[in-house]
């Protein structure tokens, strides 16, 4: 508990406001009211009220426990209710004590309740000890039947008038009207009508001229009456079933739009996620494949077309040169040989004999002409040539050419490969472009899908938060709706069949009554006929008046609810519509928002639904304005505005301050929005009581240790 030490709030008539952000202690303050009166606190996690014995420790301040010197800690809430008319006070106090035992802190199992009655003028008071008196006083402070409409938390509004609760509005109407009196009178009228009818028929039978026929007819009559009773019972059952099915269908229909949207979003989300996964996989594959394609698709050759071309050019030139050179050499040798042959300038082979030629070469002297032939000189070369045969020159040339490694075949192969790959090389650019385009497309698609998934996820999350329906629930809801519709159709068919049969049986009964009447000897007593008519008419009258009174109350509630709804919707045009309290086939009323032609508006968000319900709750109170019920009791509500946003806050305050003589509202809206707070404090249309701002002594982020946590209270007016 964040309240430590003594904390006091004084409330006056009008709208009292406790302002604080989330986690500042507003709900704890609301809990304090409830705990003091009913020994229970609302567990927001488990959404239920819990008795002190289940939550004892959480009621005690950590600071108080930490600072306690004598190991005993006492937590108490004291509420003082003033009855101005009677100049007296009722003080309700609840106390819980606890004790440190070693490291543990243990609270008492039960709290203690003390109620004191005090006369203000005489300053006299007495402690009320009788449990009956305590109960009477508490019911006087706040009667049980109006408590749900006076003390509630924002998140409970939906359940106060629950669309799923079959007759919650009917109960509410009963609470603040005398409609139950009319129901009781109707029951009396039914019993009297039945009794008079029996009395009448007994008399008819006793006056019969033909006892046998009378007995036979009476027997038939009894069977028909029996059947009619059974049919009426069935009819009520069918109506009840149909009503329940229709109300459940209505409740589901109200969520149908959201459920369909959620289901569609869910399907779309799953589809998109599947597509995204596929795209990511494809993209990853493409990226890996990109590297493989360097070789498999010969992308490594990218840009080598010029190289191949240049190489082929050079190889071709090399070949040309080589061929030319060979041809030239061959031609030259052949020409020389031919000339030698023609001119016979050359000596016959082996003339002089090779050993003489070798001697001449060695001596560097021609022994034929006896002239000097210095080595390397023309004469010496001429002598040397005598050693070789002229045709051998060509072979020598070939040998000479063959002595070095012949790269030609390598060069050719290279060239041939170049030619072979030329097509691939030309295709590489287009291939790479195409692959990159595809990768780019996949990338874009992946981004777009990721955006879509994010958007759908956001929409889905928002819708789920707003409607409190998740994907699975949406599916269940829709199949449930289908089932309920089928049930409703079946009950409708049963109802129609039963109605037709009932009509037939009632006709048969009238005929038998006429026949029985024909058998009567003499006249039936006039007083009996008059009694029967009077009481049957009274039965119809009781029913008609009850319906008329109830319809009037419903209309009055409807008008009041619309007045409050319009006031709260002031300046906001987002949700047009009129609240209509619609009657189901079995007579229950449910608040609905309809258009000008009376057609229900289906796509309502939670904010709209809460506003409709709050308007209806306020209507229940304001319809009885000026009566004891509404003037004596205080509206205490925690965060009633949290679900419908700041646009409606001021409208809500104006409405509350006009409907409730005193109210205590816990709100965070005025904490965050200073403009709104100024408006609250200055707007003359708001009948303002006291306004308090509460803040914690330690920021929430620093609350790992709550041993010094307390709540600061500041009065703003």
């Amino acid at each position: 508990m964040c309240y430590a030490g003594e904390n006091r709030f004084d409330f006056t008539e009008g709208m009292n406001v406790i302002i604080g952000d989330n986690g500042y202690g507003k709900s704890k303050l609301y809990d304090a009211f409830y705990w003091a009166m009913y020994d229970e606190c609302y567990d927001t996690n488990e959404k239920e009220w819990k008795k002190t014995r289940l939550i004892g420790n959480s009621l005690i301040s950590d600071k108080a426990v930490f600072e306690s010197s004598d190991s005993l800690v006492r937590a108490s809430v004291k509420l003082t209710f003033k009855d101005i008319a009677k100049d007296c006070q009722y003080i309700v106090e609840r106390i819980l004590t606890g004790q440190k035992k070693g490291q543990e802190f243990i609270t008492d199992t039960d709290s203690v309740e003390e109620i004191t009655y005090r006369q203000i003028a005489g300053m006299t008071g007495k402690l009320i000890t009788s449990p009956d008196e305590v109960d009477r006083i508490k019911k006087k402070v706040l009667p049980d039947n109006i408590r749900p409409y006076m003390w509630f938390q924002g998140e409970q509004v939906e359940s106060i008038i629950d669309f799923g609760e079959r007759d919650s509005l009917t109960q509410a109407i009963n609470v603040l009207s005398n409609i139950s009196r009319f129901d009781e009178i109707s029951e009396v009228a039914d019993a009297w009508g039945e009794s008079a009818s029996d009395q009448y028929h007994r008399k008819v039978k006793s006056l019969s001229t033909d006892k046998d026929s009378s007995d036979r007819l009476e027997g038939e009559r009894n069977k028909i009456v029996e059947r009619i009773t059974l049919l009426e019972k069935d009819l009520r059952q069918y109506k009840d079933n149909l009503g329940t099915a229709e109300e459940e269908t209505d409740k589901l229909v109200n969520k149908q739009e959201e459920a369909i949207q959620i289901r569609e979003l869910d399907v779309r989300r799953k589809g998109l996620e599947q597509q995204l996964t596929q795209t990511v996989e494809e993209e990853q594959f493409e990226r890996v494949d990109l590297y493989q394609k360097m070789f498999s698709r010969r992308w490594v050759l990218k840009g080598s077309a010029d190289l191949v071309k240049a190489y082929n050019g050079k190889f071709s030139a090399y070949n040309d040169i080589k061929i030319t050179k060979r041809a030239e050499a061959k031609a030259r040798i052949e020409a020389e040989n031919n000339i030698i042959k023609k001119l016979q300038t050359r000596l016959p082979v082996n003339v002089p004999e090779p050993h003489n030629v070798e001697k001449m070469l060695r001596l560097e002297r021609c022994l034929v002409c006896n002239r000097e032939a210095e080595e390397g000189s023309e004469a010496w070369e001429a002598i040397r040539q005598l050693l070789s045969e002229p045709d051998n020159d060509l072979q020598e040339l070939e040998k000479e050419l063959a002595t070095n490694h012949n790269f030609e075949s390598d060069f050719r192969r290279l060239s041939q490969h170049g030619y072979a790959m030329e097509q691939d090389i030309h295709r590489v650019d287009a291939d790479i472009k195409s692959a990159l385009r595809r990768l780019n497309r996949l990338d874009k698609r992946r981004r777009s899908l990721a955006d879509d998934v994010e958007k759908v996820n956001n929409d889905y999350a928002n819708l789920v938060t707003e409607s409190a329906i998740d994907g699975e629930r949406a599916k269940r809801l829709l199949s449930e709706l289908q089932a309920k519709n089928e049930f409703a159709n079946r009950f409708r068919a049963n109802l129609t069949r039963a109605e037709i049969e009932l009509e037939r049986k009632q006709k048969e009964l009238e005929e038998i009554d006429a026949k029985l009447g024909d058998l009567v000897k003499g006249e039936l007593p006039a007083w009996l006929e008059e009694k029967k008519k009077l009481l049957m008419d009274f039965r119809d009258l009781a029913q008609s008046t009850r319906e008329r009174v109830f319809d009037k109350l419903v209309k009055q509630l409807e008008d009041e609810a619309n007045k409050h709804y319009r006031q709260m919707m002031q300046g906001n045009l987002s949700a047009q519509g009129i609240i209509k309290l619609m009657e189901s086939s079995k007579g229950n009323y449910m608040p609905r928002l309809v258009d000008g032609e009376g057609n229900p508006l289906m796509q309502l968000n939670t904010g709209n639904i809460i506003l409709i319900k709050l308007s209806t709750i306020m209507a229940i109170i304001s319809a009885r304005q000026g009566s004891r019920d509404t003037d004596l009791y205080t509206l205490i509500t925690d965060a009633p505005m949290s679900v419908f946003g700041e646009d409606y806050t001021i409208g809500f305050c104006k409405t509350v301050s006009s409907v409730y003589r005193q109210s205590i509202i816990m709100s965070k809206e005025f904490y965050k929005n200073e403009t709104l707070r100024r408006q609250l404090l200055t707007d003359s249309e708001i009948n303002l009581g006291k306004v308090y701002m509460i803040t914690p002594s330690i920021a929430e982020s620093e609350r790992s240790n709550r041993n010094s946590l307390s709540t600061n209270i500041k009065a703003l007016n």
Partner: protein
Amino acid sequence: MTREQILRLYLEDELLVQKGYLKEGEGVDAKWADHRNKKIVEVIKFAIEGVINGDSQTMMTRKINQFLDKD
């Protein structure tokens, strides 16, 4: 709601005029003591009083029979 206010609501019902028990407007602003001569009004009063007093169904039926039976 007082028994007179409840009675008035019954007497304002059109059914009483349609069935000839009251003339148009006769039921408006009626007092508890009005229309003593009209049996239907007395029947309504019996029912209202019985319900307000918390009488049992048997007791209420006995009272109405005493009022309407001539045997």
